[in-house]
């Protein structure tokens, strides 16, 4: 292969490789060919894993690879560009693992001169990596091992450049082998899902502290500035953004919203409305704990983000005094409605404990909720149930003391319940009572359990959970489109059916998921947030279409939108059209599928948990609904056909890889007999 000199704008231009076994540190230039095909971040990481990690390498072995990376737009003033991507083979699911966080850490890494950090090997002793521009050191972290994320971060800031040092850390739960450890950035920003923190801890790597003082240049500064201004105007004028709820309450606004729409998972997905939703709402958090209740709703933001979805709060008195940190919706629902707990103080506390222990709040909450349900239904052995009963804390829905106690026990793997809990719901229940039990009581797909949205009440999200590349997950697509009422014309033009913007309908949902999935793959790879194109709809052509269907359309010059293709082109100097952008997205989805087929993922794995197809919702606005089995299968057929995957097996067909210029991937799959017919 000829390596062409790297001269694209936006990027820092090199990847930092650290081998913790040998202590070798290498700075490798990005290759033009790879960024043209995969952009950066999530896409680039997937390629690194595919090329360098044979499928027999176990997630927690020293040969596994952990990537932390940014995209070409990270840290360049574009809206919501503080994201960072973390990827590795997941210890929780055994398949492709990956998680994304919004922080200041990612941009800092780029200012230090690196687009990404690739970690291999295993340090002999607990260590951390300190990056200060050109200087990269592997330093001892013996005194930090066993410490929580909070102490670790503060200690490293003190040791290095104070508030200007950005820290990524894993927590003690991951050190002890809990399978769903998170990587926490800047104290509260979690790359929570799929156990990336566990991979980090398995390498004896406690943290990565970064300070950078460099500069980034874009290829076409004037054009770039205009595109970015257009993008900011796009988000500031988006109807949902202008409502201001989100800025006022952060993502916790979804507690009220989800409850009203009937998709707020309650008591381990038995129900989808929570009678005490008001008690755990965003308003409640603001009134009780927010310190930033200023005239303009404050909140805190990632780098260059007008949306400021983080909510910081503190508890000053009572049993949970001392609790502090940023909350967001998923954690509130996981410890709140899913566990049936109505006391927001306990929910906030449990959430921040999980954060400090470095465990994914979603998986932790789901795990505890699952134990509660099992116990209520008499499926836990007397011995297991007694473990916690003995302390006067019966494991049942709504018992906040039991919930908080279980967070500690799982993190410390204390007792049998604690040990089981550290495996995550799917593995724990399989161990307890075989696959049958796991299928009945968990919300897991491919080993990872479901976030806070009930698929029976929201068909696009539901379908997404089944096909997402990292197990049950909404963020691979995040089709909020179905949750907001848009003019029929917009839904029809975008996805061929007005039903696409309804929760209940199935029409247009496959098209909607395909579109969202590809765009999300792109934005995760360039380093911008889901909020811009799949929560708010600021991306071209949606603002334009909304205008078209207005009673009195405004002049075109008054309509602003985020044009990702222009944005990436102006920053990097590549020529990327609207169509090409989606082709890149498709390529990334394809590559992740290729990785997963090597780990054995087939059609049988693209499924929904039993509860969602068999048990109709008992109450609320979506009462009586379930995810229709037949509909699901025909949606899957259609999705496979569009993706070019074999209908029977789910393997990728050769033609599709040819079309996307993925010859190298094709050759490897061919050799391993993993191509579809």
């Amino acid at each position: 292969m000829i390596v062409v000199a790297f001269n694209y704008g936006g990027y820092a231009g090199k990847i930092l490789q650290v081998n913790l076994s040998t202590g070798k540190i290498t700075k490798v230039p990005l290759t033009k060919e790879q960024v043209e095909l995969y952009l950066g971040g999530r896409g680039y990481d997937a390629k690194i894993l595919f090329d360098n990690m044979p499928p027999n390498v176990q997630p927690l072995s020293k040969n596994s690879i952990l990537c932390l990376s940014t995209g070409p737009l990270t840290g360049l003033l574009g809206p919501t560009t503080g994201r960072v991507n973390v990827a590795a083979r997941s210890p929780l699911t055994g398949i492709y693992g990956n998680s994304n966080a919004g922080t200041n850490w990612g941009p800092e890494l780029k200012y230090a001169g690196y687009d990404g950090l690739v970690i291999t090997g295993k340090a002999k002793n607990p260590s951390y990596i300190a990056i200060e521009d050109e200087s990269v050191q592997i330093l001892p972290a013996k005194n930090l091992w066993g410490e929580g994320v909070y102490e670790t971060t503060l200690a490293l800031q003190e040791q290095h450049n104070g508030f200007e040092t950005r820290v990524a850390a894993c927590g003690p739960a991951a050190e002890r082998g809990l399978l769903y450890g998170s990587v926490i950035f800047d104290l509260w920003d979690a790359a929570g899902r799929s156990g990336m923190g566990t991979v980090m801890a398995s390498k004896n790597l406690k943290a990565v502290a970064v300070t950078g003082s460099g500069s980034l240049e874009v290829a076409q500064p004037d054009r770039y500035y205009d595109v970015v201004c257009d993008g900011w105007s796009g988000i500031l004028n988006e109807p949902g953004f202008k409502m201001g709820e989100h800025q006022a309450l952060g993502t916790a606004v979804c507690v009220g919203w989800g409850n009203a729409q009937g998709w707020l998972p309650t008591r381990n997905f038995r129900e989808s409305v929570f009678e005490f939703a008001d008690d755990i709402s965003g308003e409640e958090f603001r009134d009780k704990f927010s310190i930033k209740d200023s005239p303009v709703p404050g909140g805190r933001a990632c780098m260059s983000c007008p949306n400021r979805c983080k909510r910081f709060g503190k508890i000053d008195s009572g049993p949970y005094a001392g609790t502090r940190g940023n909350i967001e919706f998923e954690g509130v629902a996981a410890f709140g409605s899913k566990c049936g707990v109505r006391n927001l103080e306990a929910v906030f506390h449990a959430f921040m404990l999980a954060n400090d222990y470095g465990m994914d709040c979603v998986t932790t909450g789901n795990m505890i909720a699952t134990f509660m349900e099992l116990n209520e239904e008499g499926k836990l052995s007397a011995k297991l149930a007694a473990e916690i009963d003995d302390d006067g804390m019966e494991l049942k829905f709504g018992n906040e003391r039991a919930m908080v106690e279980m967070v500690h026990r799982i993190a410390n793997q204390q007792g049998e319940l604690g040990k089981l809990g550290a495996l995550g719901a799917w593995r724990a229940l399989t161990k307890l009572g075989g696959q049958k039990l796991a299928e009945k009581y968990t919300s897991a797909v491919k080993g990872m359990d479901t976030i806070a949205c009930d698929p029976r009440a929201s068909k696009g999200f539901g379908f997404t959970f089944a096909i997402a590349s990292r197990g049950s997950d909404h963020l691979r697509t995040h089709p909020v489109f179905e949750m907001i009422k848009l003019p029929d014309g917009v839904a029809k033009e975008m996805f061929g059916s007005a039903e696409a913007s309804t929760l209940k309908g199935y029409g247009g949902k496959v098209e909607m998921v395909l579109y969202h999935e590809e765009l999300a793959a792109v934005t995760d790879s360039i380093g911008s947030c889901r909020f811009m194109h799949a929560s708010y709809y600021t991306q071209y052509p949606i603002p334009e279409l909304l205008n078209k269907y207005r009673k009195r359309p405004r002049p075109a010059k008054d309509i602003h939108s985020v044009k990702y293709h222009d944005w990436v082109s102006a920053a990097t100097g590549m020529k990327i059209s609207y169509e090409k952008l989606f082709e890149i997205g498709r390529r990334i989805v394809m590559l992740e599928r290729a990785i997963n087929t090597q780990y054995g993922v087939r059609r049988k794995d693209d499924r929904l948990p039993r509860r969602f197809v068999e048990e109709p919702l008992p109450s609320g606005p979506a009462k009586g609904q379930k995810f229709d089995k037949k509909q699901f299968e025909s949606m899957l057929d259609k999705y496979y056909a569009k993706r070019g995957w074999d209908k029977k097996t789910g393997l990728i067909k050769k033609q599709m890889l040819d079309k996307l210029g993925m010859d190298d991937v094709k050759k490897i799959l061919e050799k391993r007999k993993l191509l579809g017919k």
Partner: protein
Amino acid sequence: MGKLVFNSELCTGCRACELACSFKHERLFSPHLARIRVVRVDEEGIDVPTGCEQCEVAACIAVCPVRAIYVDPETDGVIIDYDRCIGCKECMTACPFGAVHYNRAKGIFYKCDLCGGDPECVKWCVTGGVQYITDLDTVLQLKRTKTAERALRSIAEGASAAGAAAKGGGV
């Protein structure tokens, strides 16, 4: 009379101001080249924008041995004349706000020049964390209102208003 007013109660820590400033002056994106800097204090959940206060009795002007720093009569901004600057670092150490920065690549000291009266950072701030105010009465009024608001909040929280007002002052 022009001045940036920094308000940590309104700042979200998005740092758009930093990048906008660095791009306007250097055509590069780099917080280190920005004349406004935001200190993010994650453990307290607050963000503190900092920068030049365009002091009336400016320490940087007073200590400069070659009189390279002057007041722009148009904006009242305190400006460094790069041709005269000898790089002695006196201004940097004297500024109580850490608002004089050093550009290693170019070997010069630099600070906020109010963008000649059209501050770029302010255009990018969506919450009012940094504002441009051209008459002092408005600044004072803003500060008084803020103090009053703080007192009102304390009443709501059940604390004594007098105590809060006594704490008064800066943010």
